[in-house]
């Protein structure tokens, strides 16, 4: 693929874990891109045209062609900028496993984590926290099996599943801070605790991982904003 000046834009917002995935992927491949910060309260024409179905970020626009859905974007980036490092594992079975866990995270686990913030009362919150912890126990086991003693799900370097899961670390920390609960920690999830630290230090991740303090402020801001609506 010719590497002349290609036009790569990413529509996103600083706090979104999904947008973060796309940014990490582009960083891993050292792809230069223009980051266009969207105001989700007043979406740009470009966003509405590029993702008319969902009107959501992230949207990658490569040579004027839009790609939506964060995990689809990661796979797209891996395929287009195919020089190493590869983000998807090379063996189809390992890919299927990585994609399975990423889809579990998006379809089941993250909605539960998000639900904690909007829980009506302590009882509901406890139930949701327990479900999140059960999910993390599954992921701890998966991490041990998949990493095979190496630091990341992807092996020596971060890969697809590291990106899919690691992008949620900011919001996991917000949940821990706001609700005084320990989700990823050395006793319950020793593997993940080490993994999380290494992930956040990765050169492709550090520049785009929001500060927990800012995310916490943003959480309170959102909560106040939607306090009126049930």
């Amino acid at each position, binding site marked *: 693929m010719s590497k002349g000046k290609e036009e790569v834009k990413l529509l996103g917002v600083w706090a979104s874990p999904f947008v973060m995935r796309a940014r990490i992927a582009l960083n891993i491949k050292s792809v230069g891109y223009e980051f266009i910060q969207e105001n989700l309260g007043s979406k740009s024409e470009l966003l509405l045209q590029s993702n008319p179905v969902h009107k959501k970020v992230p949207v990658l626009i490569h040579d004027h062609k839009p*790609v939506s859905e964060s995990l*689809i974007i990661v796979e797209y980036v891996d*395929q287009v900028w195919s020089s190493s490092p590869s983000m998807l594992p090379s063996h*189809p*079975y390992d*890919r299927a496993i990585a994609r399975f866990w990423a*889809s579990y995270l998006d379809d089941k686990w993250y909605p539960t984590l998000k639900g904690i913030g909007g829980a009506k009362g302590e009882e509901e919150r406890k139930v949701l926290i327990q479900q999140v912890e059960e999910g993390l126990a*599954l992921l701890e086991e998966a991490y041990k099996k998949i990493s095979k003693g190496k630091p990341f799900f992807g092996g020596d370097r971060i890969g697809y599943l590291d990106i899919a899961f690691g992008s949620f670390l900011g919001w996991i920390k917000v949940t821990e801070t706001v609700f005084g609960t320990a989700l990823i920690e050395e006793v319950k999830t020793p593997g993940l605790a080490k993994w999380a630290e290494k992930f956040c230090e990765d050169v492709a991740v550090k520049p785009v991982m929001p500060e927990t303090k800012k995310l916490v402020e943003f959480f309170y801001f959102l909560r106040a904003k939607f306090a009126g609506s049930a």
Partner: protein
Amino acid sequence: MGREDVKVVSFWASLFGRRVEWALKLKGIQYEYIEEDISNKSSLLLNLNPVHKKVPVLLHHQKPIIESCLILEYIDETWMHNPLLPPQPHQKALARFWSKFADETMVDAAWMAMCFSGNEKESALKVGRESMQRIEDEIRGKKFFGGDDIGYLDIALGWISYWLPVWEQVGSFQILDPLKFPAIIAWITNFLNHPVITDSLPPRNELLLYYQRIRSQLSST
């Protein structure tokens, strides 16, 4: 290619399981089919898919792969002849996007239109019809989503050709209006007439009875 150890664990009525069988047949891969009674799940299934406890499961050399669309990708990456996904990255991304859209939005909407009545049904129908319009826009001018032959997206959307009309009959509703969606109706004919598909569909009458039973069970709870 020698005899490969390929098994499919599924349920005869499952639209998700059928995708896997279509893909294997399109690639000419021999497999053993294992029927699972999803109302009384076996320990085999619970071992193979402990997280979701669902069919289908593909077993290749005894390793389980789950989630129908992920199985399609696995099949395509393992047996690379007769590719299902388009090779061009943007086309591939689009195929994945639409199959995700359909699974997250359309299947649920059609299911709810079948199972519920009143306002819930109406909302589901609205979503179903709006989504179908998007799919109509995608198929217009093409014989198959995959081009001249069936591909990944045809397989992923195949339920529209056969399960959806059954659900419409069971739930007394219509999403597939031929006047509104002529391109989809044409695609349905092409899809169902494909030699691999036509021989690999569950008996319609039994499917109808099965969903009628489900609907009446739900409305009595």
